[in-house]
């Protein structure tokens, strides 16, 4: 038996197909992964993502510690509630994890990190904290319910307290607020508008039921993967890991090079890569022919030498054909070929974002 979130019994009662995910027993789907995908693009769906780890950081050195720990700069968070997507890098510039950091107040931050890397992340964070006056506090007492889709905000408001509903009305994209026991963040991993609700684990089952009653449909991790891939969002472990530079994972934008005096872990290595130029890039692939692109299939070009590899591939329910992220030589563009079980199948190289707010957005790379 794996780890279980407070909602495990609820998932079982809803008929979920439970699978192991990073050591956790999690719902893959509740019937049809594709139907659940469409619900998020068209209405509102909810995911139990309580397996992700919440870590609170506080202390008089919290800001300077995170400025050293993270590739993005928490100094850019100018008001409580603001959020930042960032990488945590090793000294070689490889990606230890990707995360979201929220500013809670003066020298108080909340990080949400991946479940499969949580233990490694915590050990690293504690190791790097030497010399900083910080407290690193994992919060396994909290559950996370992500409500996503064009109707997500309205449906959450319909079950929220008057204060929480008012706060949701005033909540800007990529920011968060605390109302009573709810931490409400306007963030997500689907390319749709929506909220991530971080609540005490003891309240998760009741909140889930209220949302169900309000017409929010349960969605499993299967649809979470097709939604994030359509949105062109990387998945840690697939699209980047400790052996991959952010500059080769379409994540250069998350590195805050300014101010130049900020010394963060991995900076020197990344600067050297940037000066020398990288040899690979992460691109999107679309294949309108029949079939499904899958991770680890080889990519070749008709005009450039070398080979690349698909890092994430799937059938896109919104588009009706297959899409993928692939790491390829920087010279690749336009037409390419993917080796699918021995057959060279033509694909197009595009910018790695396929769907936003329910609409196709495919641009040539």
């Amino acid at each position: 038996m794996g780890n279980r979130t407070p909602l495990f019994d609820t998932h079982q009662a809803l008929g979920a197909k439970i699978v192991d995910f990073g050591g956790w027993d999690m719902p893959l789907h509740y019937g049809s992964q594709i139907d659940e995908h469409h619900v998020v693009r068209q209405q509102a769906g909810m995911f139990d993502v309580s397996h992700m780890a919440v870590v609170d950081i506080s202390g008089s050195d919290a800001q300077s510690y995170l400025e050293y720990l993270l590739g993005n700069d928490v100094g850019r968070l100018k008001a409580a509630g603001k959020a930042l997507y960032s990488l945590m890098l090793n000294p070689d510039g490889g990606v230890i994890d990707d995360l979201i950091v929220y500013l809670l107040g003066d020298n108080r931050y909340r990080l949400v990190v991946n479940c499969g890397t949580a233990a490694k992340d915590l050990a690293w964070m504690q190791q790097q904290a030497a010399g900083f006056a910080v407290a690193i506090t994992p919060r396994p007492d909290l559950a996370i319910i992500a409500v996503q889709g064009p109707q997500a905000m309205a449906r959450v408001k319909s079950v929220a307290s008057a204060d929480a509903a008012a706060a949701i009305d005033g909540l800007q994209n990529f920011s968060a607020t605390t109302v009573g026991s709810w931490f409400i963040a306007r963030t997500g991993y689907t390319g749709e508008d929506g909220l991530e609700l971080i609540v005490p684990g003891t309240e998760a089952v009741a909140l889930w039921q209220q949302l169900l009653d309000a017409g929010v449909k349960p969605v499993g991790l299967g649809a979470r993967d097709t939604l994030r891939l359509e949105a062109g969002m990387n998945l840690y472990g697939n699209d980047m890991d400790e052996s991959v530079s952010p500059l080769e994972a379409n994540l250069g934008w998350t590195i805050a090079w300014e101010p130049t005096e900020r010394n963060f872990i991995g900076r020197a290595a990344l600067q050297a890569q940037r000066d020398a130029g990288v040899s690979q890039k992460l691109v999107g692939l679309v294949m309108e022919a029949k079939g499904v692109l899958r991770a680890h299939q080889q990519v070749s070009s008709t005009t450039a030498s070398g080979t690349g590899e698909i890092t994430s591939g799937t059938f896109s329910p919104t588009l009706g054909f297959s899409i993928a992220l692939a790491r390829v030589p920087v010279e690749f563009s336009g037409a390419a070929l993917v080796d699918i079980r021995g057959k060279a199948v033509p694909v197009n190289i595009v910018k790695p974002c396929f769907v936003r707010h329910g609409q196709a957005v495919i641009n040539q790379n």
Partner: protein
Amino acid sequence: MSELPKELRYLETHEWVRNEGDGTATVGITDHAQEALGDVVFVELPEVGQTLNAGEEAGVVESVKAASDIFAPVSGEVIAINEELEDAPETINQSPYGDGWFYRIRMSDPSELDALMDADAYREVAEDE
């Protein structure tokens, strides 16, 4: 455990075959297989007129999760394919033993059916996975 009709014969690779009693047989994938695959999004079927040998690859079914080869349970000539699956591959999930059939074959050696598993034998294989 998923549905397993008694009148069918089964392969370890999760195909079912139904003897139609007129020298032909119909082939599909089991309820267990469709459940393990998840939503089916594409299917590649053999061609009408094609000759298949038992155990030979007869097509591919692709789901959101994986691509899976389909093997021929019996030898013979393909006399019909389920063209509905082209536009509605989800039929395989909804009705694996009915509207989600793959192809129909004129058997060259109907005794091959005797070597295949019955529902109870297949149940053990499926439960061991």
